[in-house]
């Protein structure tokens, strides 16, 4: 078994896979509100992403074990799936935020809760700090204490930035 496979086996996405495919560049770069990024490459009995999506962008599953398949042209960036996914495997990234920054909308279930304007650490899939970001908004789409934190951070991190750490 090579290192890459070992890494994947420990929970790190190493490349695109079924259930973990990035939105098409062309559509993504001008899409106000952003597009969903799903990272759920294993068949498991789970479907809230699809059942919570109001537009059918995450295509309805024919089998509950399906991995999510996304029609990005239908995604509005509403973040309902981000807040509903028990695996915290859905993110929304808006590339139209500014020239050099994107708006990352990430699920967050830790304490403390950041406040608007606060600087937070941007973490990659291994929890390494790769940049500093600014909290632009905090929402709680399902009113169930899974928050979605909107963080502005450099655009070139779209393939890496997946979690935040609040330092107080």
């Amino acid at each position, binding site marked *: 078994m090579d290192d890459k496979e070992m890494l994947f086996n420990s929970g790190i996405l190493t490349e695109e896979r079924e259930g973990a495919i990035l939105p098409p560049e062309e559509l993504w770069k001008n899409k106000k509100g952003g597009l969903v990024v799903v990272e759920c490459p294993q*068949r498991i009995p789970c479907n809230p992403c699809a*059942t919570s999506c109001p537009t059918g962008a995450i295509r309805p599953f024919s089998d*509950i074990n399906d991995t999510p398949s996304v029609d990005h042209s239908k995604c509005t960036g509403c973040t309902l799936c981000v807040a509903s*996914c028990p695996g*915290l495997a859905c993110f929304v990234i808006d590339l139209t935020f500014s020239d050099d920054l994107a708006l990352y909308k990430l699920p967050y279930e830790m304490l403390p809760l950041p406040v608007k304007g606060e600087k937070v650490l941007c*973490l990659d899939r291994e929890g*390494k700090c790769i940049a500093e970001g600014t909290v632009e908004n905090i929402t709680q789409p399902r009113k169930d204490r899974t928050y979605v934190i909107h963080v502005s951070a450099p655009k070139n991190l779209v393939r890496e930035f997946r979690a935040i750490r609040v330092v107080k």
Partner: protein
Amino acid sequence: MKRLETEILVIGGGAAGLSAAAEAAAAGAKVMILESDLHLGGQLVKQTHKFFGSKDEYAGTRGFKIADILLKEMESCKENIEIHTNTTVTGYYSEDDTFTAMRDEDEFFTIKADRAIVATGAQERLIPFVNNDLPGVYGAGAVQTIMNVYGVVPGKRVLMVGAGNIGLIVSYQLMQAGVEVAAIVEAAPKVGGYWVHAAKVRRMGVPILLRHSIKRALGDEIITGAMITELNERFEPVGEEKKIDCDVICIAVGLTPTTEILSQAGCEMMYVPELCGNVARRDSSMQTSNPKFFTAGDASGIEEASAAMVEGRVAGLSALKSLGYPTEHGRLEEYWGRLQALRSGEAGKRICQGLTCVLTEDWEAVHNG
């Protein structure tokens, strides 16, 4: 000595037991639930994370909220349900067809029941290593109970042993409680739990060391650390031992079904590795070889709350039917449909393999030769 009576005795008030009770009581049967713990809900009340599964089984809802939903459902037929918490069923005596039970530590009584549904859940497995009797070595269930039920953190820095769903989820919950997770060690070359749960703790910076295990706990009176080692393909230690600083070692290496009562009732038992231990043989109505006994949930094989709830409904329905209550046509088939859907994935494959060993077509056919 006090003696109680009921039509359907439900032993264990977790996901499976509550579902069984709700199903049977709604149809008019007299149901009694006995639960060891101080409150109903079983494993569910400790689960603060959102559940997987399908919407029918409340996917996306936090575990403890699911317990509330089941309790609410029972409210609507509460005149048919008698509940005893802090009460453990200590045995079944087939000679006089009597259950014995103990409330708290001093009140002992017996129960006569026409049918029994054994939904006693599971017990944690532990592994041997040097110093595993030091204070600070916990089972994952204990960590969850003190943390999520009583609001007490177990320590400051934890080494988690086992990367199945329980080890991954409890690690995440520890971090939510402000406890640091030093690392998760896993003997297999791959996390056993869902990949997304692993990804979730990884991005919080927790290393998951595959092909690693614990050798010994360090410390005299309390834990001060642990020595871990890498394993080869044959699970033999290789290379130098590494030290992990921690004050808690949490063991999450799996569960095994709790089935003593079924054995006492003479139910045909079978060791099925895919179901994680000794379980009762049963037909598709969850009836065991002793026609008065039904089983459901983790006690019938380690699976998930989603499946436990549906199995509970199947057992409740079948117990009703065997007592002569009218039941809705096609309901059992609907429940089996849901179970099959839940089990059609990668994780379900193992369960299905196990079930082919323990499922009997039909006890009547078996008994009549």
